[in-house]
Protein backbone atom coordinates (compact mmCIF):
# COMPACT_ATOMS: atom_id res chain seq x y z
CA UNK A 1 0.00 0.00 0.00
CA UNK A 2 2.79 2.35 0.92
CA UNK A 3 4.48 1.44 -2.36
CA UNK A 4 1.40 2.33 -4.37
CA UNK A 5 1.16 5.65 -2.59
CA UNK A 6 4.80 6.39 -3.30
CA UNK A 7 4.34 5.61 -6.98
CA UNK A 8 1.24 7.80 -7.13
CA UNK A 9 3.14 10.67 -5.55
CA UNK A 10 6.02 10.17 -7.89
CA UNK A 11 3.69 10.24 -10.88
CA UNK A 12 1.99 13.48 -9.84
CA UNK A 13 5.39 14.98 -9.20
CA UNK A 14 6.47 14.08 -12.72
CA UNK A 15 3.31 14.90 -14.60
CA UNK A 16 1.78 18.03 -13.14
CA UNK A 17 4.52 20.62 -13.72
CA UNK A 18 5.14 19.59 -17.30
CA UNK A 19 1.48 20.08 -18.08
CA UNK A 20 1.73 23.78 -17.35
CA UNK A 21 5.33 24.80 -17.95
CA UNK A 22 6.90 23.07 -20.95
CA UNK A 23 5.11 22.99 -24.31
CA UNK A 24 4.12 19.54 -25.49
CA UNK A 25 6.71 17.93 -27.73
CA UNK A 26 5.32 15.73 -30.49
CA UNK A 27 7.44 12.97 -31.95
CA UNK A 28 7.24 12.56 -35.70
CA UNK A 29 8.66 9.24 -36.81
CA UNK A 30 9.97 9.37 -40.35
CA UNK A 31 10.86 6.18 -42.24
CA UNK A 32 13.09 7.18 -45.13
CA UNK A 33 15.23 5.47 -47.74
CA UNK A 34 18.89 5.37 -46.69
CA UNK A 35 19.90 7.76 -49.51
CA UNK A 36 17.99 10.47 -47.61
CA UNK A 37 20.04 10.02 -44.43
CA UNK A 38 22.00 13.29 -44.52
CA UNK A 39 19.42 15.44 -46.29
CA UNK A 40 16.58 14.53 -43.93
CA UNK A 41 18.72 15.02 -40.83
CA UNK A 42 19.39 18.59 -42.02
CA UNK A 43 15.81 19.19 -43.21
CA UNK A 44 14.53 17.97 -39.86
CA UNK A 45 16.79 20.40 -38.00
CA UNK A 46 15.66 23.25 -40.23
CA UNK A 47 11.97 22.39 -39.81
CA UNK A 48 12.37 22.19 -36.04
CA UNK A 49 13.63 25.79 -35.96
CA UNK A 50 10.17 27.10 -36.80
CA UNK A 51 8.19 24.24 -35.27
CA UNK A 52 9.82 23.91 -31.88
CA UNK A 53 7.27 21.42 -30.60
CA UNK A 54 8.44 18.72 -33.03
CA UNK A 55 11.04 16.08 -32.39
CA UNK A 56 11.98 13.93 -35.37
CA UNK A 57 12.79 10.27 -35.03
CA UNK A 58 14.34 8.96 -38.22
CA UNK A 59 14.50 5.36 -39.30
CA UNK A 60 16.75 5.07 -42.35
CA UNK A 61 17.07 1.83 -44.27
CA UNK A 62 16.42 0.37 -47.67
CA UNK A 63 12.99 1.52 -48.86
CA UNK A 64 11.99 -2.13 -49.32
CA UNK A 65 12.82 -2.98 -45.70
CA UNK A 66 10.95 0.09 -44.50
CA UNK A 67 7.88 -0.77 -46.61
CA UNK A 68 7.92 -4.28 -45.13
CA UNK A 69 8.18 -2.83 -41.63
CA UNK A 70 5.29 -0.42 -42.22
CA UNK A 71 2.99 -3.04 -43.74
CA UNK A 72 3.73 -5.18 -40.68
CA UNK A 73 2.60 -2.44 -38.37
CA UNK A 74 5.70 -0.40 -37.59
CA UNK A 75 4.64 2.96 -36.08
CA UNK A 76 5.74 5.33 -38.85
CA UNK A 77 4.20 8.77 -39.26
CA UNK A 78 5.82 9.56 -42.60
CA UNK A 79 7.24 7.28 -45.27
CA UNK A 80 9.68 8.54 -47.90
CA UNK A 81 10.65 5.93 -50.45
CA UNK A 82 13.46 5.98 -53.00
CA UNK A 83 11.13 4.43 -55.56
CA UNK A 84 7.46 4.28 -56.44
CA UNK A 85 7.22 0.46 -56.17
CA UNK A 86 7.80 0.40 -52.42
CA UNK A 87 5.45 3.32 -51.84
CA UNK A 88 2.90 1.35 -53.85
CA UNK A 89 3.26 -1.59 -51.41
CA UNK A 90 2.27 0.72 -48.56
CA UNK A 91 -0.58 2.26 -50.62
CA UNK A 92 -1.85 -1.21 -51.55
CA UNK A 93 -1.94 -2.15 -47.88
CA UNK A 94 -4.20 0.86 -47.34
CA UNK A 95 -1.65 2.44 -45.02
CA UNK A 96 -1.11 5.69 -46.94
CA UNK A 97 -2.73 7.67 -49.67
CA UNK A 98 -2.00 10.42 -52.20
CA UNK A 99 1.81 10.40 -52.04
CA UNK A 100 3.70 13.40 -53.39
CA UNK A 101 6.95 13.26 -55.28
CA UNK A 102 9.35 15.59 -53.49
CA UNK A 103 12.73 14.86 -55.06
CA UNK A 104 14.54 12.93 -57.71
CA UNK A 105 17.99 11.49 -57.90
CA UNK A 106 20.37 10.05 -60.44
CA UNK A 107 22.95 7.32 -60.39
CA UNK A 108 26.69 7.63 -60.31
CA UNK A 109 29.56 5.19 -60.10
CA UNK A 110 31.31 5.58 -56.77
CA UNK A 111 35.05 4.85 -56.84
CA UNK A 112 37.77 5.34 -54.24
CA UNK A 113 39.27 8.84 -54.23
CA UNK A 114 41.66 9.30 -57.13
CA UNK A 115 39.91 6.59 -59.16
CA UNK A 116 42.92 4.22 -59.00
CA UNK A 117 41.37 1.69 -61.38
CA UNK A 118 40.60 4.42 -63.95
CA UNK A 119 36.93 3.66 -64.32
CA UNK A 120 35.38 5.82 -67.03
CA UNK A 121 31.89 4.45 -67.33
CA UNK A 122 29.52 1.52 -66.82
CA UNK A 123 31.36 -0.58 -69.44
CA UNK A 124 34.44 -0.67 -67.19
CA UNK A 125 32.42 -2.35 -64.45
CA UNK A 126 32.51 -5.59 -66.42
CA UNK A 127 36.32 -5.65 -66.35
CA UNK A 128 37.60 -8.75 -64.54
CA UNK A 129 40.00 -6.71 -62.38
CA UNK A 130 37.18 -4.60 -60.93
CA UNK A 131 35.66 -5.58 -57.59
CA UNK A 132 32.10 -4.32 -58.03
CA UNK A 133 29.47 -4.00 -55.32
CA UNK A 134 25.80 -3.25 -55.98
CA UNK A 135 22.75 -2.93 -53.79
CA UNK A 136 20.54 -6.03 -53.71
CA UNK A 137 18.02 -6.20 -56.59
CA UNK A 138 15.25 -6.00 -53.98
CA UNK A 139 16.49 -2.55 -52.94
CA UNK A 140 15.63 0.50 -55.13
CA UNK A 141 19.28 1.42 -55.71
CA UNK A 142 20.04 -2.15 -56.78
CA UNK A 143 17.08 -2.25 -59.13
CA UNK A 144 18.04 1.10 -60.70
CA UNK A 145 21.66 -0.04 -61.05
CA UNK A 146 20.58 -3.14 -62.98
CA UNK A 147 18.40 -0.95 -65.22
CA UNK A 148 21.32 1.35 -65.98
CA UNK A 149 23.64 -1.58 -66.69
CA UNK A 150 21.01 -3.06 -69.00
CA UNK A 151 20.66 0.25 -70.85
CA UNK A 152 24.42 0.30 -71.29
CA UNK A 153 24.39 -3.31 -72.46
CA UNK A 154 26.85 -4.26 -69.71
CA UNK A 155 26.81 -7.60 -67.92
CA UNK A 156 28.49 -6.96 -64.60
CA UNK A 157 29.22 -9.51 -61.90
CA UNK A 158 29.04 -7.87 -58.49
CA UNK A 159 30.86 -9.60 -55.62
CA UNK A 160 28.15 -8.55 -53.20
CA UNK A 161 24.55 -7.38 -53.17
CA UNK A 162 24.40 -5.07 -50.19
CA UNK A 163 21.32 -4.50 -48.06
CA UNK A 164 21.06 -0.80 -48.84
CA UNK A 165 22.78 1.88 -50.88
CA UNK A 166 24.76 3.23 -47.93
CA UNK A 167 26.32 -0.21 -47.44
CA UNK A 168 27.48 -0.05 -51.09
CA UNK A 169 28.99 3.36 -50.46
CA UNK A 170 30.76 2.09 -47.33
CA UNK A 171 32.34 -0.83 -49.17
CA UNK A 172 33.79 1.63 -51.70
CA UNK A 173 34.88 4.21 -49.15
CA UNK A 174 36.58 1.48 -47.07
CA UNK A 175 38.48 0.50 -50.21
CA UNK A 176 37.10 -3.05 -50.23
CA UNK A 177 35.35 -2.48 -53.54
CA UNK A 178 36.75 -0.75 -56.62
CA UNK A 179 33.36 0.53 -57.68
CA UNK A 180 29.71 0.63 -56.70
CA UNK A 181 26.61 2.11 -58.28
CA UNK A 182 25.00 4.57 -55.91
CA UNK A 183 23.08 7.84 -56.10
CA UNK A 184 24.68 11.15 -57.01
CA UNK A 185 23.73 12.32 -53.52
CA UNK A 186 25.63 9.45 -51.87
CA UNK A 187 28.85 10.35 -53.66
CA UNK A 188 28.43 13.97 -52.63
CA UNK A 189 27.84 13.01 -48.98
CA UNK A 190 31.06 10.99 -48.92
CA UNK A 191 33.07 13.38 -51.09
CA UNK A 192 36.10 13.13 -48.81
CA UNK A 193 36.39 9.38 -49.28
CA UNK A 194 34.97 8.58 -52.70
CA UNK A 195 34.82 10.12 -56.13
CA UNK A 196 31.98 9.90 -58.62
CA UNK A 197 32.10 8.82 -62.24
CA UNK A 198 29.17 10.25 -64.21
CA UNK A 199 26.77 8.04 -66.12
CA UNK A 200 25.66 9.57 -69.45
CA UNK A 201 22.02 10.52 -69.93
CA UNK A 202 21.16 7.67 -72.30
CA UNK A 203 22.22 5.12 -69.66
CA UNK A 204 20.90 7.12 -66.73
CA UNK A 205 17.97 6.07 -64.54
CA UNK A 206 16.02 8.72 -62.68
CA UNK A 207 14.88 7.78 -59.20
CA UNK A 208 11.73 9.55 -58.05
CA UNK A 209 11.09 9.87 -54.33
CA UNK A 210 7.47 9.77 -53.17
CA UNK A 211 6.49 10.72 -49.61
CA UNK A 212 3.22 10.26 -47.73
CA UNK A 213 1.68 10.44 -44.29
CA UNK A 214 1.20 6.95 -42.90
CA UNK A 215 -2.23 5.96 -41.67
CA UNK A 216 -2.47 6.10 -37.90
CA UNK A 217 0.12 8.88 -37.63
CA UNK A 218 0.11 10.38 -34.13
CA UNK A 219 -0.27 13.89 -35.54
CA UNK A 220 -1.17 13.66 -39.24
CA UNK A 221 -1.40 17.43 -39.56
CA UNK A 222 2.13 17.94 -38.32
CA UNK A 223 3.39 15.08 -40.48
CA UNK A 224 1.68 16.76 -43.45
CA UNK A 225 3.39 20.05 -42.59
CA UNK A 226 6.78 18.35 -42.84
CA UNK A 227 5.86 17.09 -46.31
CA UNK A 228 4.68 20.60 -47.28
CA UNK A 229 7.97 21.95 -46.01
CA UNK A 230 10.00 19.47 -48.10
CA UNK A 231 8.16 20.54 -51.24
CA UNK A 232 8.42 24.26 -50.33
CA UNK A 233 11.26 26.44 -51.73
CA UNK A 234 13.14 26.23 -48.40
CA UNK A 235 12.90 22.45 -48.27
CA UNK A 236 13.84 22.08 -51.92
CA UNK A 237 16.86 24.30 -51.34
CA UNK A 238 18.12 21.99 -48.62
CA UNK A 239 17.55 18.89 -50.73
CA UNK A 240 19.32 20.56 -53.68
CA UNK A 241 22.24 21.26 -51.35
CA UNK A 242 22.66 17.51 -50.93
CA UNK A 243 22.50 16.91 -54.67
CA UNK A 244 18.84 15.99 -55.10
CA UNK A 245 17.04 17.25 -58.20
CA UNK A 246 13.58 18.75 -58.34
CA UNK A 247 10.75 16.21 -58.57
Amino acid at each position, binding site marked *: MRGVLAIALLLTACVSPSRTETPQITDVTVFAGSSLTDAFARAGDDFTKTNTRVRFIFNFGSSSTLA*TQITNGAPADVFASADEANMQKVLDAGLAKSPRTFASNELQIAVPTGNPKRIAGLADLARPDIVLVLA*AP*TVPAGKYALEALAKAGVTARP*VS*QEVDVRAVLNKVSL*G*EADAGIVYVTDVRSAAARVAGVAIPDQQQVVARYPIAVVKGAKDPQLAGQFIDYLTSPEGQKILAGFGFSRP
Partner: protein
Amino acid sequence: MSSERPPALLAALAIVGVAFFILPLAGLLARAPWQSALGELTTPEALTALRLSFVISLAATALALLLGVPLAWIYARVPFRGRDLIRALTTLPMILPPVVGGVALLFAFGRRGLFGQALDAIGIRLPFTTFGAILAATFVAMPLLVLTVEAGLRSMDRRYEDAARTLGAGRWIVFRRVTLPLIAPSVFAGAVLCWARALGEFGATITFAGNLPGTTQTLPLAVYIALETRPEVAIMLSVVLLAVSLAILVAMRDRYLRAF
Protein backbone atom coordinates in the same frame (compact mmCIF):
# COMPACT_ATOMS: atom_id res chain seq x y z
CA MET B 1 15.17 -32.19 -6.26
CA SER B 2 11.87 -31.42 -4.58
CA SER B 3 9.10 -29.47 -6.20
CA GLU B 4 7.54 -26.52 -4.44
CA ARG B 5 4.75 -24.06 -5.11
CA PRO B 6 6.17 -20.79 -6.39
CA PRO B 7 4.90 -17.46 -5.01
CA ALA B 8 2.11 -16.15 -7.26
CA LEU B 9 4.16 -13.16 -8.41
CA LEU B 10 7.10 -15.31 -9.48
CA ALA B 11 4.80 -17.69 -11.33
CA ALA B 12 3.07 -14.84 -13.15
CA LEU B 13 6.36 -13.22 -14.22
CA ALA B 14 7.74 -16.60 -15.27
CA ILE B 15 4.69 -17.12 -17.47
CA VAL B 16 5.24 -13.70 -19.08
CA GLY B 17 8.87 -14.71 -19.58
CA VAL B 18 7.87 -17.92 -21.35
CA ALA B 19 5.28 -16.10 -23.48
CA PHE B 20 7.90 -13.59 -24.54
CA PHE B 21 9.87 -16.37 -26.21
CA ILE B 22 7.02 -18.56 -27.37
CA LEU B 23 4.89 -15.86 -29.02
CA PRO B 24 7.40 -14.81 -31.70
CA LEU B 25 7.93 -18.45 -32.59
CA ALA B 26 4.19 -19.00 -32.73
CA GLY B 27 3.86 -15.93 -34.94
CA LEU B 28 6.47 -17.32 -37.31
CA LEU B 29 4.85 -20.76 -37.43
CA ALA B 30 1.38 -19.27 -37.90
CA ARG B 31 2.56 -17.38 -40.99
CA ALA B 32 4.40 -20.36 -42.48
CA PRO B 33 2.93 -21.53 -45.78
CA TRP B 34 2.68 -25.20 -44.80
CA GLN B 35 0.84 -26.29 -47.97
CA SER B 36 3.61 -25.04 -50.20
CA ALA B 37 6.42 -25.58 -47.67
CA LEU B 38 8.37 -28.01 -49.81
CA GLY B 39 7.89 -25.82 -52.87
CA GLU B 40 9.28 -22.76 -51.09
CA LEU B 41 12.26 -24.69 -49.74
CA THR B 42 13.16 -26.11 -53.14
CA THR B 43 13.20 -22.79 -54.96
CA PRO B 44 16.67 -22.25 -56.45
CA GLU B 45 17.43 -19.34 -54.10
CA ALA B 46 16.47 -21.40 -51.04
CA LEU B 47 18.43 -24.45 -52.17
CA THR B 48 21.50 -22.34 -52.92
CA ALA B 49 21.36 -20.72 -49.49
CA LEU B 50 20.77 -24.07 -47.74
CA ARG B 51 23.70 -25.70 -49.51
CA LEU B 52 26.03 -22.77 -48.91
CA SER B 53 25.03 -22.48 -45.27
CA PHE B 54 25.86 -26.11 -44.61
CA VAL B 55 29.22 -25.84 -46.37
CA ILE B 56 30.16 -22.65 -44.52
CA SER B 57 28.97 -23.76 -41.08
CA LEU B 58 30.67 -27.17 -41.37
CA ALA B 59 33.90 -25.62 -42.60
CA ALA B 60 33.78 -23.10 -39.76
CA THR B 61 33.28 -25.96 -37.29
CA ALA B 62 36.23 -27.85 -38.75
CA LEU B 63 38.42 -24.75 -38.48
CA ALA B 64 37.21 -24.13 -34.93
CA LEU B 65 38.07 -27.73 -33.98
CA LEU B 66 41.52 -27.45 -35.50
CA LEU B 67 42.36 -24.25 -33.64
CA GLY B 68 39.96 -24.42 -30.71
CA VAL B 69 40.85 -27.77 -29.15
CA PRO B 70 44.56 -26.86 -28.79
CA LEU B 71 43.54 -23.47 -27.41
CA ALA B 72 41.23 -25.09 -24.86
CA TRP B 73 44.03 -27.46 -23.85
CA ILE B 74 46.41 -24.55 -23.25
CA TYR B 75 43.78 -22.68 -21.24
CA ALA B 76 43.02 -25.72 -19.09
CA ARG B 77 46.57 -26.97 -18.54
CA VAL B 78 49.12 -24.20 -18.88
CA PRO B 79 48.95 -21.43 -16.33
CA PHE B 80 50.66 -18.36 -17.74
CA ARG B 81 50.62 -14.65 -17.07
CA GLY B 82 47.70 -12.97 -18.78
CA ARG B 83 45.85 -16.20 -19.42
CA ASP B 84 42.56 -14.80 -18.17
CA LEU B 85 42.95 -11.76 -20.36
CA ILE B 86 43.80 -13.82 -23.44
CA ARG B 87 40.89 -16.14 -22.72
CA ALA B 88 38.57 -13.16 -22.38
CA LEU B 89 39.83 -11.71 -25.66
CA THR B 90 39.29 -14.98 -27.53
CA THR B 91 35.81 -15.47 -26.12
CA LEU B 92 34.80 -11.86 -26.68
CA PRO B 93 32.94 -12.61 -29.93
CA MET B 94 30.38 -14.57 -27.89
CA ILE B 95 28.95 -11.35 -26.51
CA LEU B 96 30.35 -8.83 -28.99
CA PRO B 97 27.74 -7.61 -31.49
CA PRO B 98 28.55 -9.66 -34.60
CA VAL B 99 28.51 -6.53 -36.76
CA VAL B 100 31.38 -5.18 -34.66
CA GLY B 101 33.18 -8.45 -35.26
CA GLY B 102 32.62 -8.01 -38.99
CA VAL B 103 33.97 -4.47 -38.94
CA ALA B 104 37.01 -5.65 -36.97
CA LEU B 105 37.63 -8.47 -39.45
CA LEU B 106 37.38 -5.95 -42.28
CA PHE B 107 39.95 -3.67 -40.68
CA ALA B 108 42.26 -6.62 -40.10
CA PHE B 109 41.84 -8.73 -43.22
CA GLY B 110 40.13 -6.33 -45.64
CA ARG B 111 42.01 -5.11 -48.67
CA ARG B 112 43.15 -2.01 -46.81
CA GLY B 113 43.25 -3.77 -43.46
CA LEU B 114 46.18 -4.15 -41.11
CA PHE B 115 47.12 -7.58 -42.50
CA GLY B 116 44.86 -7.56 -45.51
CA GLN B 117 47.27 -5.37 -47.48
CA ALA B 118 49.92 -8.06 -47.28
CA LEU B 119 47.38 -10.73 -48.22
CA ASP B 120 46.23 -8.61 -51.14
CA ALA B 121 49.82 -8.25 -52.30
CA ILE B 122 50.13 -12.02 -52.65
CA GLY B 123 46.75 -12.24 -54.34
CA ILE B 124 44.59 -13.44 -51.45
CA ARG B 125 41.25 -11.71 -51.06
CA LEU B 126 39.01 -12.58 -48.13
CA PRO B 127 36.08 -10.11 -48.20
CA PHE B 128 33.31 -11.15 -50.58
CA THR B 129 34.55 -14.75 -50.73
CA THR B 130 33.15 -17.99 -49.32
CA PHE B 131 36.34 -18.34 -47.28
CA GLY B 132 35.67 -14.89 -45.85
CA ALA B 133 32.21 -16.06 -44.78
CA ILE B 134 33.79 -19.14 -43.17
CA LEU B 135 36.19 -16.90 -41.23
CA ALA B 136 33.33 -14.67 -40.08
CA ALA B 137 31.37 -17.70 -38.88
CA THR B 138 34.44 -19.17 -37.15
CA PHE B 139 35.12 -15.85 -35.44
CA VAL B 140 31.73 -15.75 -33.74
CA ALA B 141 31.25 -19.50 -33.18
CA MET B 142 34.65 -20.83 -32.05
CA PRO B 143 34.45 -19.41 -28.49
CA LEU B 144 31.54 -21.76 -27.76
CA LEU B 145 33.70 -24.73 -28.68
CA VAL B 146 36.73 -23.51 -26.75
CA LEU B 147 34.75 -22.94 -23.55
CA THR B 148 32.98 -26.30 -23.81
CA VAL B 149 36.20 -28.22 -24.43
CA GLU B 150 38.05 -26.35 -21.69
CA ALA B 151 35.28 -27.26 -19.23
CA GLY B 152 35.60 -30.89 -20.34
CA LEU B 153 39.36 -30.86 -19.84
CA ARG B 154 39.06 -29.36 -16.39
CA SER B 155 36.53 -31.91 -15.21
CA MET B 156 38.20 -35.01 -16.65
CA ASP B 157 40.04 -37.54 -14.51
CA ARG B 158 43.72 -36.87 -15.06
CA ARG B 159 44.95 -40.08 -13.47
CA TYR B 160 44.62 -41.81 -16.85
CA GLU B 161 47.07 -39.36 -18.33
CA ASP B 162 49.46 -39.88 -15.44
CA ALA B 163 49.19 -43.62 -15.91
CA ALA B 164 49.96 -43.31 -19.61
CA ARG B 165 52.99 -41.15 -18.86
CA THR B 166 54.39 -43.57 -16.29
CA LEU B 167 54.09 -46.23 -18.97
CA GLY B 168 56.36 -44.12 -21.17
CA ALA B 169 53.91 -42.34 -23.46
CA GLY B 170 55.11 -39.03 -24.87
CA ARG B 171 53.11 -35.80 -24.57
CA TRP B 172 51.61 -36.06 -28.00
CA ILE B 173 50.65 -39.73 -27.54
CA VAL B 174 49.03 -38.92 -24.19
CA PHE B 175 47.00 -36.16 -25.78
CA ARG B 176 46.09 -38.16 -28.86
CA ARG B 177 45.37 -41.56 -27.25
CA VAL B 178 44.20 -40.69 -23.73
CA THR B 179 43.05 -37.09 -23.37
CA LEU B 180 41.20 -36.74 -26.65
CA PRO B 181 39.10 -39.93 -26.27
CA LEU B 182 38.23 -38.92 -22.68
CA ILE B 183 37.04 -35.46 -23.65
CA ALA B 184 35.36 -36.64 -26.86
CA PRO B 185 31.85 -35.91 -25.51
CA SER B 186 32.85 -32.32 -24.72
CA VAL B 187 34.51 -31.91 -28.10
CA PHE B 188 31.39 -33.23 -29.79
CA ALA B 189 29.09 -30.98 -27.76
CA GLY B 190 31.32 -27.97 -28.40
CA ALA B 191 31.41 -28.73 -32.10
CA VAL B 192 27.63 -29.02 -32.31
CA LEU B 193 27.09 -25.74 -30.47
CA CYS B 194 29.72 -24.08 -32.63
CA TRP B 195 28.07 -25.42 -35.76
CA ALA B 196 24.67 -24.14 -34.68
CA ARG B 197 26.06 -20.70 -33.94
CA ALA B 198 27.88 -20.65 -37.28
CA LEU B 199 24.67 -21.64 -39.06
CA GLY B 200 22.86 -18.66 -37.59
CA GLU B 201 25.64 -16.12 -38.20
CA PHE B 202 24.44 -12.90 -39.83
CA GLY B 203 26.11 -9.65 -38.75
CA ALA B 204 29.79 -10.49 -39.15
CA THR B 205 29.10 -12.30 -42.43
CA ILE B 206 27.21 -9.48 -44.12
CA THR B 207 29.71 -6.91 -42.91
CA PHE B 208 32.88 -8.79 -43.76
CA ALA B 209 31.87 -11.13 -46.56
CA GLY B 210 28.98 -9.27 -48.13
CA ASN B 211 25.91 -10.88 -49.63
CA LEU B 212 26.02 -12.80 -52.89
CA PRO B 213 23.83 -15.83 -53.64
CA GLY B 214 25.96 -18.92 -54.02
CA THR B 215 29.11 -17.32 -52.60
CA THR B 216 28.37 -15.64 -49.28
CA GLN B 217 24.57 -15.53 -48.98
CA THR B 218 23.93 -17.94 -46.11
CA LEU B 219 20.50 -18.84 -44.73
CA PRO B 220 20.14 -15.86 -42.37
CA LEU B 221 21.15 -13.44 -45.14
CA ALA B 222 18.76 -15.09 -47.57
CA VAL B 223 15.99 -14.77 -44.97
CA TYR B 224 16.71 -11.07 -44.58
CA ILE B 225 16.77 -10.38 -48.32
CA ALA B 226 13.82 -12.61 -49.18
CA LEU B 227 11.62 -11.14 -46.46
CA GLU B 228 10.93 -8.13 -48.66
CA THR B 229 10.12 -9.88 -51.89
CA ARG B 230 9.45 -13.55 -51.15
CA PRO B 231 8.20 -13.65 -47.56
CA GLU B 232 7.08 -17.29 -47.93
CA VAL B 233 10.62 -18.37 -48.75
CA ALA B 234 11.98 -16.27 -45.89
CA ILE B 235 9.52 -17.81 -43.42
CA MET B 236 10.21 -21.39 -44.50
CA LEU B 237 13.99 -20.85 -44.29
CA SER B 238 13.44 -19.38 -40.83
CA VAL B 239 11.46 -22.47 -39.84
CA VAL B 240 14.37 -24.65 -40.98
CA LEU B 241 16.82 -22.64 -38.86
CA LEU B 242 14.40 -22.77 -35.96
CA ALA B 243 13.96 -26.53 -36.18
CA VAL B 244 17.70 -27.20 -36.38
CA SER B 245 18.48 -24.88 -33.47
CA LEU B 246 15.72 -26.34 -31.32
CA ALA B 247 16.81 -29.90 -32.03
CA ILE B 248 20.38 -29.03 -31.02
CA LEU B 249 19.37 -27.30 -27.80
CA VAL B 250 17.10 -30.16 -26.76
CA ALA B 251 19.72 -32.77 -27.60
CA MET B 252 22.49 -30.81 -25.86
CA ARG B 253 20.42 -29.76 -22.84
CA ASP B 254 22.47 -31.38 -20.10
CA ARG B 255 25.83 -30.77 -21.70
CA TYR B 256 25.10 -27.13 -22.45
CA LEU B 257 24.21 -26.43 -18.84
CA ARG B 258 27.18 -28.34 -17.51
CA ALA B 259 29.67 -26.52 -19.70
CA PHE B 260 29.07 -23.12 -18.18
